[in-house]
């Protein structure tokens, strides 16, 4: 393999990691509070707001039902407004983030739903405010489940990022299609796939480790 090819693969790997990192971090920062909000505003929950809950739920569902490839092209004007361009890894990170936010939110909501209602009741009996319940009970107690959800999100982002080539984003998927498929270079195709597999394995193992560390059950 030529050194030019090697550089290409290295750059594509770094591009993928960059897109996954940016969209992973931002979608967690937005999705985590959204997931908590989806949970605590449910009827009979600590901040019951049924109308708001319904509205958030519908928006989240819409976000989750749009196919990623369509979302990517549909929000090009928004992407251009946000990062000044519609091509490249920064541009690809925008739809990745948008797609991952509702995903994270639902997984966080699901993790909170697994908690025993008795924990909230106990905290309320101690005179905890809703904010204290969220910070001192809900999030710490659900952190194993939240970590599992974030691992799933990162792995999903790795595979979504492979589609970013469709809007001129870089990364391993893009490289695999352009060099491996369009230029009939099975070696490149194989290498990109192997790197993606290793990457997913790595993220999954890291996630499992963090879940084990945070779970005391």
């Amino acid at each position, binding site marked *: 393999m030529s050194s030019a090819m090697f550089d290409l693969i290295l750059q594509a790997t770094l591009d993928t990691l960059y897109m996954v990192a940016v969209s992973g971090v931002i979608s967690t920062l937005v999705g985590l509070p959204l997931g908590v909000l989806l949970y605590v505003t449910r009827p009979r929950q600590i901040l019951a707001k049924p109308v708001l809950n319904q509205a958030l739920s519908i928006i989240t569902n819409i976000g989750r039902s749009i196919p990623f490839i369509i979302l990517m092209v549909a929000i090009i004007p928004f992407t251009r407004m946000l990062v000044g361009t519609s091509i490249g890894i920064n541009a690809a990170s925008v739809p990745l983030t948008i797609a991952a936010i509702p995903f994270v939110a639902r997984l966080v909501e699901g993790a909170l739903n697994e908690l*025993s209602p008795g*924990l909230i009741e*106990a905290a*309320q*009996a*101690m*005179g905890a405010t809703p904010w204290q319940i969220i910070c001192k009970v809900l999030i710490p*107690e659900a952190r194993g489940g939240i970590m599992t959800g974030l691992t799933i999100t990162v792995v999903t982002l790795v595979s979504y990022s492979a589609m970013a080539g469709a809007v001129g984003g870089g990364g391993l998927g893009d490289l695999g299609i352009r060099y491996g498929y369009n230029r009939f270079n099975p070696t490149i195709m194989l290498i990109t796939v192997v790197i993606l597999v290793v990457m997913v394995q790595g993220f999954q193992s890291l996630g499992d480790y963090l879940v084990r560390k945070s779970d005391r*059950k």
Partner: protein
Amino acid sequence: MIELSNVSKTYFSNNKGSGTHAVHALKNANLTVPKGTIHGVIGLSGAGKSTLIRCVNLLERPTSGSVIVDGQEMTRLSNAALNRARHRIGMIFQHFNLLTTRNVFDNVALPLELMGQKRNVIRERVIPLLEMVGLADKANQYPAQLSGGQKQRVAIARALASKPQVLLCDEATSALDPQTTSSILELLRDINHQLGITILLITHEMEVVKSICHRVSLISDGELVEDSEVGDFFTAPRTQLGREFLNDFLQLTPPKELLERLSDMPGVDTHPVVRLTFSGDAVSTPLISRLARECSVDVSILQAKVESIQDRTLGLMIAELLGTPDQTQQAMTYLESHQLQVEVLGHVQRNV
């Protein structure tokens, strides 16, 4: 210390088709628990016990009525004031509800953290509490590493951390084995004794009421149907449900073969089968032999038991009275005149 007046709680559920459906979980409940006493509320599951105890710290907001704890009308407090009032009311639960991601120390520290106490103040408070519940050596363990009884001890320490005046116990021993139950009850009694904390507990176990309560209320279908001193409740329950609880507890029911032969109405050659309950002086009087002499009836004892309930002695007996209808009637009157409770269970044909 705790005063519930006319507290009602109604749940509305929207069933599709049948419209709104109201469930009356609590109907005009009145309950007074004086400072420093242990009051038990006993009832079957679904009778409204949980709703009742949750109305005290407003985990459930009553539909109507007044809840006064330590002189404060709870239902009229703002959210912030309610949270402050809850710091003065500890609560423990059937399933402990400890935080799994916090160790024993941090679980007990939680209510103090919520109150915004400083780390060194928390330390000074938590360590003695752990010593009191006998878990000082477990401070760094996690709930998953503890037994059920130890978890409940942690929960008790946690409930006491904010120095409450009142402790609410929601079926606190129902998930524990009999030995652990009695050690937890002993701890609760010590707490009541040493700290003067008023305890309101709900349970379905007579054993709990018998061993630690001063007074007991019986709840049935959302209504408090009986309220008495524990000694009175165990010797002379006033309601049918009270008697059923007592009989279950004493395991004094007639043998099955006898029950099958029992008929409600007296017949030609039948004898009454009676349940006799006696307490106080009657326990030490040789009533059965006197019965034979003075009323000339023979007594065949089918079952008998003597229990001591706190400072009282309670005797129970199931017996068949053998004699003519006149004689047996006279015998029952005689027994009643000696402060025995006589309940005719039925009549049985004598196969002789």
